[in-house]
């Protein structure tokens, strides 16, 4: 997990390391929905002594990993439309029942990607608002309003180096005041009433480095450093 000093162009965590870092904070027994993209990687890094139940909004609780080659069923897929498996103790259900779990507040944790997160916890992750874009929202608006805790897992900056953590989202919103915590390649940051609260810096990353790449003030980790492993919901 330590930064590779021989490759100075890579500061902070890799995608896999980001997923691993977030996975450490998922408590035993949690019911979790993992979004498409980097969040999908998280399941592979949850410590083996914890049992976590994965929900996929297209109708499965107890989702397991991808099937062995040639053993998949095109009708057993996840929300990203990739083939998956069902663990012993799984259950299938229809879409309205699936969103009862989401909207009704029964899931503990939703992990999602982001285009932007505001200092107030607003999330924008479904549209850049570009006039020729095909708008597509999926279940993100339901997840952020229904699930106990919303963790964002994202690169700290866009490909063009612009901050994704901002004072105010400029892209169309997915939800207002819904994000609890942000895991990036550079840091772990809580959304608090006081603003972006730094929880932890990635190895080899300085406070100033992260602040420079963050579009709003970052509150330093209070001393003595009391890292919380928050289990919401």
């Amino acid at each position, binding site marked *: 997990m330590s930064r590779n000093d021989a490759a100075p162009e890579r500061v902070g965590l890799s995608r896999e390391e980001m997923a691993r870092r977030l996975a450490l904070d998922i408590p035993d027994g949690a019911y979790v929905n993992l979004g498409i993209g980097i969040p999908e990687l998280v399941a592979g890094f949850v410590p083996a002594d914890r049992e976590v*139940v994965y929900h996929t909004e297209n109708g499965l*609780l*107890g989702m397991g990993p991808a099937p062995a080659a040639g053993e998949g069923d095109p009708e057993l897929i996840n929300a990203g439309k990739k083939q998956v498996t069902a663990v*012993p103790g*799984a*259950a299938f259900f229809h879409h309205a029942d699936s*969103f009862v779990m989401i909207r009704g507040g029964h899931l503990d944790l939703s992990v999602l990607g982001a285009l932007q997160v505001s200092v107030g916890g607003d999330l924008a992750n479904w549209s850049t608002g570009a006039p020729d874009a095909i708008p597509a929202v999926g279940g993100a608006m339901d997840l952020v309003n229904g699930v106990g805790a919303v963790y964002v897992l994202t690169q700290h900056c866009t490909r063009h180096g612009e901050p994704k953590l901002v004072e105010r989202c400029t892209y169309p919103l997915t939800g207002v005041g819904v994000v609890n915590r942000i895991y990036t390649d550079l840091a772990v940051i809580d959304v608090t009433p006081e603003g972006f609260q730094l929880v932890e810096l990635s190895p080899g990353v300085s406070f100033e480095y992260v602040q420079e790449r963050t579009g709003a003030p970052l509150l330093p980790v209070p001393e003595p450093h009391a890292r919380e492993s928050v289990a919401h919901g």
Partner: protein
Amino acid sequence: MIDKLQPDIHEAVGNIHDGATVMIGGFGEAGSPIELIHALIDHGATGLTVVNNNTGTGEVGLAALIAAGRVAKMICSYPRSVNSTVFPEQYRAGKIELELVPQGTLAERIRAGGAGIPAFFTATSVGTPLAEGKEHRTFEGRQYVLEHGLTADFALIKGRAADRYGNVVYNCTARNFAPIMATAARTTIVQVHQVVEPGGLDPECVITPGIFVDRVVEVAHPLHESELVAAGARYP
């Protein structure tokens, strides 16, 4: 590891607090979690608001809970039936409050509560005393009333079998309100005839996925309310 099995039925209901709202599954005796109710009587919590389609029969199960003076308010659709005397007596004596709700509206309010829906419109009860004081609205020329989602602190339900994740299947018409109550309560406690290993329930046939269940108690040979009533039994 996830293990919702609770070997001690008294511990299973041990944190039900005075004044709690408790949904209790069952339509008549079918699906009535009679052992859980008796454990709740032993536990002693009082001032309860109970949601059930009926009000129990004889002096066992739900009727015994009411007879013990533990229920401040009933929310139900049909509080009288053959062999039902405890509730009528307390009601006439002004000792218990009643919120009468049409059966389908009761079911839908519970489902809404579990689904994060605070309110919905239904045509049921329009023009009747049960719609009085409720917001009315016309959609496509037809009148509807606004009804609110119903949630609870606890649900006590009965299934046929469950696993340690809390996945539950039911028996025939004993299913009735249990699956929706499991979604609407903060803490759902289920008694089942049989606990099975994970994988012992077909994932295509699980009726209540484990996410809605908190505690599972095995009661291999539950009592039958109608037999107890016929025998003149009384609890405790």
